[in-house]
């Protein structure tokens, strides 16, 4: 299937969870094999998150007292006017309705669609505390540590050799890689989850899978940094949901992992 089959509007509606089921299935099917398409969807996911995060601070600004006072005064004046006009008609059963909770439930647009979208091969990175951190086309090139797309040689070597549980320092002060687990997909493809910490960069939780001896990043998610008040859906939850969605098996035990890593595939 080709990208051009889907318009921007369709892909946007998919990213926003507003697409009908039939078309959603078609987009999902196409995403499994089409990275360019995924990048187009990712752009819409990113821009939504970026816009939402960027304007969040405005909500925290205090509303000028004067404005609040004026609204209250207008309500009081209005109330007085109404009472004068038709006193018996006001009050009563309306009151209950007005006391409904202020918070309207958000539109039914859960993360599940988003995660389904993420289940294709992709490089979407959901921001941590600071909000949105990464670019849809791919994570910033981090030199030897290159994470996006095909994993760079230094990191590949680590993924090929280090046992889960190990923490490996990369170069001189370039950061550390902590291997979390190794597991196989239903297809037998070997994947690893690892965390990457680099000085001055947000930490990343990433999943890479090996195909013909090349490691490909399937997911990279920024780890939330504590303390900033606003944290989007936990990155670790995203990783878990992602693993489930790609049919990840249980983590291999130490022996099986050794064997799987050594096997050339």
């Amino acid at each position, binding site marked *: 299937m080709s990208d051009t089959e889907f318009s*921007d*509007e369709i892909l*946007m*509606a998919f990213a*926003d969870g*507003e697409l009908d089921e039939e078309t959603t299935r078609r987009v999902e099917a196409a995403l499994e094999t089409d*990275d*360019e398409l995924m*990048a187009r969807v990712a*752009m*819409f996911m*990113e*821009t*939504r998150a*970026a*816009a*939402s*995060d*960027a*304007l969040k*601070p*405005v*909500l*925290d*600004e205090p*509303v*000028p007292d004067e*404005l*609040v006072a*004026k*609204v*209250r005064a*207008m*309500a*009081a004046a*209005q*109330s007085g006017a*109404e*009472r004068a006009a038709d006193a018996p008609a*006001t*009050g009563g059963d*309306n*009151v209950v309705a*007005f*006391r409904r909770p*202020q918070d*309207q439930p958000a*539109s039914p647009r859960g993360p599940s669609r988003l995660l389904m979208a993420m289940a294709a091969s992709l490089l979407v990175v959901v921001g941590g505390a*600071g*909000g*949105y*951190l990464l*670019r*849809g*086309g*791919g994570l910033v090139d981090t030199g030897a540590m290159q994470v*996006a797309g095909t994993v760079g040689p230094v990191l590949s070597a680590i993924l090929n050799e280090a046992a889960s549980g190990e923490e490996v320092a990369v170069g001189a002060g370039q950061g550390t890689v902590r291997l979390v687990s190794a597991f196989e997909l239903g297809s037998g493809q070997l994947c690893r989850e690892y965390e990457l910490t680099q000085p001055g960069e947000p930490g990343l939780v990433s999943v890479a899978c090996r195909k*013909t001896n*090349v490691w*490909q990043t399937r997911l990279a998610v920024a780890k939330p940094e504590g303390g900033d008040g606003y944290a989007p859906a936990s990155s670790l939850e995203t990783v878990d949901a992602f693993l489930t969605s790609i049919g990840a098996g249980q983590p291999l035990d130490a022996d099986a992992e050794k064997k799987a890593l050594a096997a050339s595939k």
Partner: protein
Amino acid sequence: MTDPTIAFGERLVAFLPNLRRFAISLCRSRDVADDLVQAACEKALAGSDRFEEGTRFDAWMFRILRNLWIDQLRRQKTAGPTEEIDAQAELAVPSGEAGSEARMALKSVAAAIDGLVLEQREVLILTCVEELSYKEAAEVLGIPIGTVMSRLARARKNLAEATGIEPPVARSQDMRGGTR
């Protein structure tokens, strides 16, 4: 017993931060926005019996405010856009913790949203920031859903371009070096 109009006023007060945010993004000026918010509240209070419980209060308020703003723009057409230029970047995050790259990035997103034309800006705010559905946004703006979608898609492509969120066509070689 709570007076319904007073209760309605409190509901408005609770909603002021969101209303103000929408107004700021429309006017790109906090002072103008606060006047607009006040005018919208006045109108809402006068017509509070026309709000149907069970429908979205936020969408209803956004529509009132936005219609007022459009009226105002029409009236001002002859006055010229003097204040628009200065007001640019008003949305930018106040620099609390400057230096953090994430924050700098967010700033530029806010500035990029400010730079969108009104018809793209308003649809972007309503859907992506205030979380209205396409249909709800269409009702607020008084336009068909198809128009909401085409404007929104354009707004997001422009935003991606302005902030360096890579458009798909511009992906690097590395990204294609896969073995699929």
